[in-house]
């Protein structure tokens, strides 16, 4: 069924189709519509779920962990300061190996107060052991929420779906909602092997000495590595029922590209427009969109970039004292190659500043002329 819905409601309908059993959430702009819609859905009896209206995001994540470790499919959504407040519990969810799925509406962190788009909030959580998916449009948001449950439940790790504040959250697009019946088949009921169960009592998360803690961290890393394959397989399975296929990355006209732009999230749609316009002028530019940031698809990124003359990573984020976070990751993926093209970093669109087609064209056009050792550039900053 096709519906014109916002990115926020795409999250809500994704959670509904995934038949989440426990939702715990706290309101934060611009996430509020996600949980408002879910509240309606639950109170109308369209979804058999418990909705815990907690007193903070920290408690939202703690409640999701409690529910998930008791064997329920748990979901929450947040943004910005809320995600930052959850930080401790994000580590806890990973260590507890619970497949909670959460939507994060990418928004700036204050001060100063700013409610617009920026990916620094979720990228700051990159080392918490959560799978991270960055979506391009509302259809992908809905599809990714559903797939994330399947992926996370297979690898026993939590997952975060990232969408951009206002570009996605409050912008309506046509979204195709799959039939509940086909999703039920794709995503069976969550029934973990180990859970809090009075018939088989276990202790979870107790004191663990150096003798075993180390191995438990190794297991998290190997599950993350397994997730690379699981994401691809799940993408194929999902394509079989919906016709829409998603993987670790998304390639757009990269086969013969001399310059490759690298983006994540909503900006990728603008970048695709820019690529089309440049292609009309016979400029061989392509786009690589990072969809899965954790686990990071090193091989796929390496394979595509190494055949280009140069690559430019546009980051809507900044790791202060270092550089753009995607820029770091992409460079690191290429380190192993003896012959690698120069990779340039561009910071753009922080705090919801619009990143226009013209700016992206300028970025692509500047790349062939750049010095190989160029660190990174602030695009359009009034400095």
């Amino acid at each position: 069924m096709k519906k014109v819905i916002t990115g926020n409601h795409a999250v809500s309908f994704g959670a509904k189709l995934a038949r989440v059993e426990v939702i715990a959430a706290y309101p934060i702009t611009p996430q509020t519509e996600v949980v408002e819609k879910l509240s309606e859905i639950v109170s109308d009896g369209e979804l058999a779920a418990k909705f815990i209206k907690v007193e903070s995001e920290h408690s939202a994540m703690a409640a999701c962990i409690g529910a998930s470790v008791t064997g329920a499919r748990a979901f929450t959504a947040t943004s910005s300061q809320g995600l930052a407040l959850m930080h401790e519990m994000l580590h806890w969810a990973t260590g507890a190996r619970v497949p909670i799925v959460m939507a994060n509406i990418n928004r700036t962190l204050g001060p100063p107060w700013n409610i617009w788009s920026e990916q620094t909030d979720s990228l700051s959580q990159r080392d918490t052991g959560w799978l991270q998916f960055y979506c391009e449009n509302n259809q992908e948001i809905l599809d990714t929420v559903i797939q994330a449950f399947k992926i996370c439940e297979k690898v026993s790790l939590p997952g975060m779906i990232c969408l951009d504040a206002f570009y996605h959250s409050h912008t309506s697009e046509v979204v195709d909602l799959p039939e509940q019946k086909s999703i039920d088949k794709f995503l069976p009921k969550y029934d973990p092997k180990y859970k809090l169960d009075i018939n088989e009592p276990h202790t979870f998360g107790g004191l663990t000495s150096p003798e075993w803690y180390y191995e438990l961290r190794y297991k998290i890393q190997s599950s993350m590595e397994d997730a690379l394959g699981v994401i691809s397989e799940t993408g194929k399975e999902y394509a079989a029922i919906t016709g829409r296929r998603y993987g670790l990355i998304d390639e757009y006209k990269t086969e013969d590209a001399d310059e490759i732009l690298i983006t994540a999230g909503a900006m990728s749609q603008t970048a695709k427009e820019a690529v089309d316009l440049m292609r009309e002028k016979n400029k061989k530019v392509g786009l690589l969109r990072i969809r899965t940031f954790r686990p990071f698809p090193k091989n796929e990124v390496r394979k595509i970039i190494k055949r280009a003359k140069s690559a430019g990573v546009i980051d809507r984020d900044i790791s202060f004292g270092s550089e753009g976070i995607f820029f770091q990751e992409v460079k690191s993926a290429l380190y192993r190659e003896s012959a690698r093209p120069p990779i340039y970093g561009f910071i753009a669109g922080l705090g919801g500043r619009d990143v226009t087609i013209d700016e992206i064209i300028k970025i692509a056009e500047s790349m062939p002329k750049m010095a190989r050792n160029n660190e990174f550039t602030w695009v359009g900053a009034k400095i």
Partner: protein
Amino acid sequence: MKLTIPEIEIMSSGHVACQGCGATLAFRYALKALGRETIVVIPACCWSIIDGPFPYSAAGVPLFHTAFETAGSTASGVRAALDIKGIDNVSVLAWAGDGGTMDIGIQALSGAVERGEDIIYVCYDNEAYMNTGIQRSSSTPYGAWTTTTPAKNFKTGPKKNMVEIMVAHKIPYTATANIAFPEDFIAKLKKAKSIKGPKFIQIISPCPAGWKFSSQLTIKLAKLSFEACVFPLYEVENSRYTVKKPNKKTDVREYLNLQGRFKHLNSDAMGLIQKNIDEEWGLLLKKERTSDEKCAETDAKA
């Protein structure tokens, strides 16, 4: 006299508590009262260690160790999962120390009880951060030495009255308990189990290491805390107070003098403690009387 303490032993030996630990006894009694149909959530506290290191556990029931400030919220999640699965014969017990309850955990606890979560929250109160080496908490009483309130600069504020904070939330059941009176504690837990909604019990659990007393005195000190009315035993059921009175109210000095944490106090300070206890005790008895009258009025109207 027939004892009513259930024979069933759910908690096993092999735990790693200090000798004479009051909190260990408290947990043992709690499980005797609630039975095997219990899921426990434990935030950071002495019990994070007492339970034993991986792969061992002395609890005997499903147990989830959670972060320090999340006993109330994690327990809410467990309850929600049980509810959605239609499992209605299981008690969810949040088991936290005084720091995890009155300080860092108060927000999650307040949130959980305000939402009316059907959980039993037990705070085992040893009046300081004992697991991290005896630092003051908001439950540390006036006059006590801790590693962050040295004898020369002992704590001068009163112990936070968590029971009143819970009563102010208008929850159906709040009570205090004492490890020296296990039958009373068990009866209160059984009552808590039978009531739907949030239940809060604070149990005084003397700590030999933190209070600085010899480990054979745990029960004696717990008993004295009741007899001296330092830690009164009472219940508040839907706003009605019921206070258990000692046969003879003893001088607080007997209680204080057995503990190293108060040995620096002069007689003036001890006198002040006695005065405060007398006032608080008087106030509690007054609350019992007035709540009884109020409840009787309400009952008559109904």
